């Protein structure tokens, strides 16, 4: 599947996540820190709900008229001398980009952070074609140097690593000799990457928002890497998910404002770059050749259906930072580059239920994600919707749930069996019961009681209690 990471089963991935105490505390403090900053940035405006409603109406309008806006965008990119390739599948996108790289005889490619190129596994394709691909976002760079470890968070990809681990990776792979101070590590990456920008043949970026009216691409960063990727190599390729588009600069304003506040609690990030086509005549920097690849890869199947609102997403990760389940299991547990609530909704839609049927269950349906979403995607309702689809249409409910339901169905359908079952429960659980708690249960209770207690079955059944009570009252 396109954005799948690793081959471990869901349960094993979660188990690994839960046992990684550094990762869990890093995730918890990230959630608290970013969450507070996001809240402060939203509160500061005083009318955040109105902003969210505006974000929602813009995204809904664009999705309802997506073919029109994409046509307009492509015309305007072409008018400015850019090439536009519409790719229905990841294979088509990868093949087009590979061909551009081969035609340009590219040896080195620098990239700024992009989830969509992770989704299509573009780096592997380019490396197989003989290119060296260098990620320039600091977090992505760390993961790449560490044998292409997958990202665990949409905006802070190396969140699960501590500075000592980064130091170790840099020492082993880059001959780094300094301390584990983030400043020194970042400076080393700056020095290594500066040379890469200046000698790269091609730059590749994702796309935060494309502007249909002018054919412009808007990139949002703090490090400034996207500016160098779009300014220095002679050829520039931008890959965009087909839904990441706004009508004009005026809607770009609103969505960028929602994105930076929701993602990191900043009014605007350090660099917002809005480029249009290749460099103009007589300009000395900027690309000579520009290619825009617009990717479907399963997105159109979501349009027009009950999950359409997930395409409103602007990838801010506010839902990830608010999710109590993500807090405990971390990003890699989702088995997809898209983690947290957005990942749990999107991954089964793009990658199928076979691989991702567990994800909609990795939620308490508490609705924290829905509350923080800047474009009002009803995330927890979509998770619930997935469960309905999995059980009713796909017949893919988790086996334990199926067995439990089947057993309950048999037991509850026969008054005799129900009577016996509920009567023997306290006796059957006696060996495992201390006081009124079970702390080391058998069978299906084992996993639960490894971490917490389970209440023991009541010695008096409801039916007996009711009968006795009626008797007492009568007397």
């Amino acid at each position, binding site marked *: 599947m396109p954005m799948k990471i690793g081959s471990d089963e869901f349960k094993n991935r979660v188990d690994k996540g839960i046992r990684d105490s550094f990762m869990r505390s890093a995730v918890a403090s990230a959630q608290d820190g970013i969450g507070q900053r996001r809240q402060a940035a939203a509160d500061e405006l005083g009318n955040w709900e109105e902003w969210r409603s505006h974000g929602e109406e813009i995204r809904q309008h664009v999705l309802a008229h997506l*073919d029109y806006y994409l046509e307009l965008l492509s015309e305007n990119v072409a008018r400015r001398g850019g090439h536009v390739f519409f790719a229905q599948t990841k294979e088509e996108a990868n093949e087009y980009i590979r061909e551009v790289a081969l035609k340009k005889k590219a040896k080195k490619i620098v990239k700024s952070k992009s989830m969509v190129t992770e989704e299509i596994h573009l780096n592997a394709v380019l490396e197989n074609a003989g290119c060296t691909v260098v990620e320039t976002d600091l977090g992505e760079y760390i993961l790449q140097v560490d044998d292409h470890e997958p990202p665990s968070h949409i905006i802070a990809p190396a969140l699960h690593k501590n500075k000592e681990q980064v130091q170790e990776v840099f020492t082993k792979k880059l001959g780094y000799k300094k301390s584990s101070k983030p400043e020194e590590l970042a400076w080393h990456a700056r020095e290594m990457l500066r040379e890469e920008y200046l000698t790269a043949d091609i730059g590749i970026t994702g796309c935060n928002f494309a502007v249909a009216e002018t054919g412009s691409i808007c990139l949002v960063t703090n490090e*400034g890497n996207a500016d160098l990727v779009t300014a220095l190599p002679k050829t520039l390729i931008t890959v965009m998910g087909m839904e990441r588009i706004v009508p004009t600069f005026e809607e770009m304003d609103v969505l960028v404002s929602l994105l930076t506040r929701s993602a990191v609690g900043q009014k605007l990030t350090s660099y917002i770059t809005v480029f249009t086509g290749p460099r103009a005549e007589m300009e000395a920097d900027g690309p000579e050749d520009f290619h825009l690849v617009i990717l479907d890869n399963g997105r159109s199947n979501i349009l027009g259906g009950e999950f359409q609102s997930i395409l409103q997403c602007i990838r801010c990760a506010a839902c990830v930072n608010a999710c109590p389940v993500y807090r405990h299991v971390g990003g890699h547990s989702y088995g997809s580059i898209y983690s947290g609530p957005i990942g749990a909704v999107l991954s089964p839609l793009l990658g199928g239920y076979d691989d991702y049927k567990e994800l909609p269950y990795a939620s308490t349906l508490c609705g924290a994600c829905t509350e923080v979403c800047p474009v009002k995607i009803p995330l927890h309702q979509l998770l619930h919707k997935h469960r309905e689809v999995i059980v009713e249409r796909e017949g893919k409910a988790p086996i334990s749930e199926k067995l439990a339901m089947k057993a309950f169905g048999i037991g509850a359908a026969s008054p005799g069996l129900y009577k016996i079952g509920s009567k023997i429960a306290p006796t059957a659980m006696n060996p495992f019961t201390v006081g009124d708690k079970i702390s080391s249960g058998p069978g299906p209770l084992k996993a639960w009681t490894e971490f917490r207690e389970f209440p023991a079955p009541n010695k008096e059944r409801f039916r007996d209690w009711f009968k006795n009570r009626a008797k007492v009252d009568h007397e």
Partner: protein
Amino acid sequence: MMKNVIQNRDEFLNQIAYRLGRERLITPIERPQWKYRPQIDVLKNATQDELLAVLKEQCKKIHTSFCVTELKNLPSVLKDVVSIYGGGPIVTWKDERFSKWGLDMFLKEEWESYEWDPIKEEENIKIAEKANIGITISEITLAESGTVVQFTDKNKGRTVSFLPAAYIALIPKSSLVPRITQAAVKMREIYHTTGQVSSCINFITGPSNSADIELKLVVGVHGPVQAYYIVINDL
């Protein structure tokens, strides 16, 4: 339209229209009258002085030094700031305002200083890469976020703001607007009037930074490590 410049479009867009349960949209769509417009209320009716105060406060949050000067004192103020950042080499845009504001001679005489020159083509990039300081002028300045807006053209290279270790923005006070909303409106106006849009519009908010290692903020990653905004009061 040139052949093959746009590939696979019809099949792709037909699929979208099909999924949306309708025919392809072929007639232009009017930009909707939005129900909500919260962005126009931010710092509404603020005077230039009030916007300046907001900008000053915001600079504290974006690790950016800030000062205000009268035009006549600009050369000496700039000289001080350049000295704080360790002097040249300096790279600037090719912009007549530098000489109009009395900076030309000073920049050339005091330090090793280069002006972006379209004739030199890519030599400009090498110069910017070696420069210690890049100096540009803000066309639109966003008070709310502390952002400088720049429009690239042949005389105003993109990399002047990104490759040097330190960045200085000269900000005419009159360029101050409440927020990115007004810049977006202006950008559309320019597009509608001229039919053109700059090949690269940069919104720059302080020096580059990253929190990718343990979420600890590091100022100065790929772009400048330090940034200084000099507001010119009587412009």
